[in-house]
């Protein structure tokens, strides 16, 4: 990353007076532009990241700073932080890219047979061909098998599987289908606060009504049906609530919902006739003892036909997280349950407009759901790598929670899963006032200061949403353990310094 973003993103002042009147004759101006775009914001790559990129540039130009490097603990990018890719997956993808390598004896047989199978499913035996819009058939079948196995045998129809360009693409596609109406009948979508800002940005772009329901920080960020009901009842006055989004394991909060909670949510969705959107991209990232990932689909079907025949559900997964961390490949899928047939036909049409998801990402998704099996040559090494990555993450999750909880004024819920900690921080009144004076949210003010003094880039809680009067930041647990230790101690020192300065 370097200065390009900074160049692009010097946000010009918005007032017309400072800018002068817009150039005469422009077709696309701030006034003619799609008005919903003005509401779009995405904190994870927002102003603090732009500043971080500027600082990196300054460092590389030899400017003196109170730190040697910028540590970007803002984005859930595992490889950028040194996590290693899974060898088997990269071997198969290399074989698919350059099939001459099928003659190379250094590649294991199981990798080669997977590659051959993928290539046979591609037009002209090449990953450079378009695939069907819904995704490569054999990959969708592999996904269906995986889901079925994961969910204890609950049947999965490959026809309900849509491969996507990462999970974000699937989520946005579903939201497009769900959003309609005008004024008081405009679609409302329930999202958890704190939330992953893709949701709020997408809802803003689509002009949908965002319905916030608060996760319970005191109870480890669990969902509370009473709170869901409150949010829904309030929303019914000014919109038409149609969907409920859940992220489990949670981002940024890291909670893993227990089974009862998931059942309660399903009952709630059934009662209130809400379309369930279950973002489950962190399904393998579960660390805490006593916690277990329960897929919404599995629980739905175990609740019997009264629910499993009626509740409409879309589940999302991707290649970007878990133990793979392959964000750059843009692999993902969604499973659609109980969707009206006519709507499903429209969904199929909608995805065809973007032609197809990147084929290497599709191939990778196929490998993730169909990894080396016991007895296959690559199995042992695969399991070793997978276990090492997941246990390293678990260690880092524990370390993060421990260290942050030793800081007076910081309290961190257990990082039960996913890749982030979202500790609550106390910010002195004086600092709150100074932030207001600068037109900044207090936690943005805090994070900017942290960045300038330590080079550590985090995302302020205001970017994710939080209860009024509370402040948080989101920090990834991805840096290598030794760097993470340094990072945590620097955050601790900074917090104490900051608190003292503004006391």
């Amino acid at each position, binding site marked *: 990353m370097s200065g390009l973003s900074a160049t692009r993103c010097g946000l010009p002042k918005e007032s017309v007076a400072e800018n002068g009147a817009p150039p005469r004759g422009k077709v696309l101006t701030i006034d003619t532009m799609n008005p919903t775009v003005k509401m779009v914001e995405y904190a994870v790559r927002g102003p603090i990241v732009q500043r971080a990129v500027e600082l990196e540039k300054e460092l590389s130009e030899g400017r003196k700073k109170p730190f040697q490097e910028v540590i970007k603990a803002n984005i859930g990018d595992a490889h950028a932080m040194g996590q290693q890719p899974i060898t088997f997956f990269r071997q198969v993808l290399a074989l698919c890219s350059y099939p001459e390598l099928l003659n190379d004896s250094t590649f294991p047989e199981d990798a080669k047979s997977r590659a051959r199978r993928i290539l046979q499913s591609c037009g002209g035996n090449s990953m450079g061909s378009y695939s069907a819009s819904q995704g490569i058939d054999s990959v969708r079948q592999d996904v269906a098998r995986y889901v079925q196995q994961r969910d204890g045998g609950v049947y999965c129809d490959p026809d309900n599987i849509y491969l996507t360009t990462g999970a974000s693409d699937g989520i946005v596609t579903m939201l497009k289908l769900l959003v309609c109406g005008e004024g008081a009948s405009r679609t409302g979508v329930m999202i958890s606060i704190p939330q992953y800002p893709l949701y709020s940005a997408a809802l803003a772009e689509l002009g949908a009504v965002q319905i916030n329901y608060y996760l319970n920080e005191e109870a480890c960020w669990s969902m509370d049906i009473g709170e869901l009901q409150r949010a829904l009842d309030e929303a019914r006055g000014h919109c038409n609530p149609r969907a409920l989004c859940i992220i489990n394991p949670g981002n940024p909060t890291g909670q893993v919902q227990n089974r009862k909670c998931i059942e309660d949510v399903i009952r709630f969705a059934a009662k209130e006739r809400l379309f369930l959107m279950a973002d489950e991209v962190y399904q393998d990232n579960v660390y805490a003892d006593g916690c277990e990932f329960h897929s919404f689909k599995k629980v739905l079907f175990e609740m019997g036909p009264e629910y499993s025949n009626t509740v409409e559900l879309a589940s999302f997964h991707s290649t970007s997280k878990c133990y793979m961390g392959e*964000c750059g*490949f843009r692999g993902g899928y969604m499973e659609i349950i109980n969707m009206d047939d006519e709507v499903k036909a429209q969904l199929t049409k909608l995805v065809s407009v973007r032609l197809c998801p990147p084929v290497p990402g599709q191939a990778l998704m196929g490998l993730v759901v169909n990894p080396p099996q016991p007895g296959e040559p690559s199995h042992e090494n695969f399991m070793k790598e997978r276990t090492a990555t997941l246990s390293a993450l678990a260690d880092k999750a524990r370390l993060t929670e421990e260290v942050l909880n030793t800081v007076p004024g910081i309290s961190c819920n257990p990082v039960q899963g996913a890749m982030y900690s979202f500790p609550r921080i106390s910010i002195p009144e004086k600092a709150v006032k100074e932030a207001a004076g600068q037109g900044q949210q207090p936690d943005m003010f805090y994070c900017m200061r942290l960045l300038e003094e330590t080079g550590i880039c985090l995302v302020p809680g205001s970017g994710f949403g939080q209860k009024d009067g509370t402040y948080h930041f989101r920090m990834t647990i991805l840096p290598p353990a030794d760097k993470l230790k340094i990072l945590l101690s620097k955050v601790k020192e900074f917090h104490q310094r900051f608190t003292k300065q503004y006391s």
Partner: protein
Amino acid sequence: TFHFKCDIQGEKKPYKDVIDVCWGDPHGAGMKPLTFVRQVLAACIYPQLLDGGNLPMDVKRRAQKLLRWCDGGSVGSYTNTGGILEIVENLAQFISQRDGVPAHPENIWIHPGSQTILTLLLSSEATPKRGVLVPVPGHSTVPLSVAALGGVAAPYFLDEERGWELRADELRRALASARGVCRPVALYVINPGNPTGHVQSRKSMEEVIRFVAENNLFLLADEVYQGSVYDANSEFVSYKKRLYELGPPLAHTLELASFHSASKGLLGECGLRGGYVELLNMDPVVMPYVERLFHLIPSPPVTGQIALELMVEPPQPGDPSYPLYMHVSPKVHRNRSSDIQSAAPMLQVLNRLPAISCQPVRGGAFAFPRLHLTTKAIRKAKDAGMQPDMFYCTKLLEDTGVFVSPGCEYGQKEGTYHIRFGFLPKHHLVRLSAFHLKFMKDLS
């Protein structure tokens, strides 16, 4: 149509394979990927290959360079929203060299397709609805996107008798007609044309530019086939270059979005999804919002970015991979592709057949011949509940396994019928010709 093809598989047929020349998919139609591209891609994905002795030195150096540009040295990392900085800079250089006009990295975004710019231009809440003028015939993704965003795709007809020329009087007619149902905000052109295979003349491009300026429209130029020009008398000129040739004030005010990708031309890497848009003369106040919209896509696929990089930075004379690269594409330095068969021999065959005629294919990847169907054929199609050209394509597929797409999917003048297909090797052309003769005879 894809489902349709799958339906007939498994039945006994008088042919062994279905030849799919329906989608604009070079690899799917049998074109081989470029070795250099695939070697670099494999080495980037599995860097252990850099240690072995089997890959040429220039492949290794290139892969190492690309990996240095990736966070954590991995193609699995997110990149900058608009693409890896160094690749964007190389795209800028490519464009500058192509046009003789400077291109700036800040105006270039690696991102497949026109969705983002259309999202800005259109608005589902606008009344009257906003419109985009789109070519007929033209491939359907933009009209579909426009409709999905709450806009109106208003057609302008290319002139078949004049080699699918884009005429100013037709643009004026189309605009006036569009104003009856919407507020037009943009004009979308495809050059070289898809499916029509025309390459716009400089004069025609000037007319388009002046038309757009006079009528306060945003110009969207789909130039993905710029690497595929066959006709010795035709030349691809980018809209940006043409605009600059016309000088100020147009050159500094006309809003233009130009699209290119690694899906066509020499590379044909559709599945990797590598594309970019160059924005020109945008209102600076709008640019941060463009950025925000691009942020909603976490990262363009890295494999697609690699394809783009290799497209604009091919092997050079002296590089170990150069001879093989040039063997496949001897005219690469003149930006023409001879890897895709020239259309001329194919057209000669077609134009000699009765009841089928094809305008010269000067560029692009398709032939779009017109079927002169008899009344009997048209009636039979209607009885079957199908568009006449769809009926023809269905029968063609069932009888011969050759899978082409009907003109009705691209739009065409009322009462005319066409088929679109990629360039057919000789023996496939034979199947098509034999079918055509029989079809026309049976329904004469």
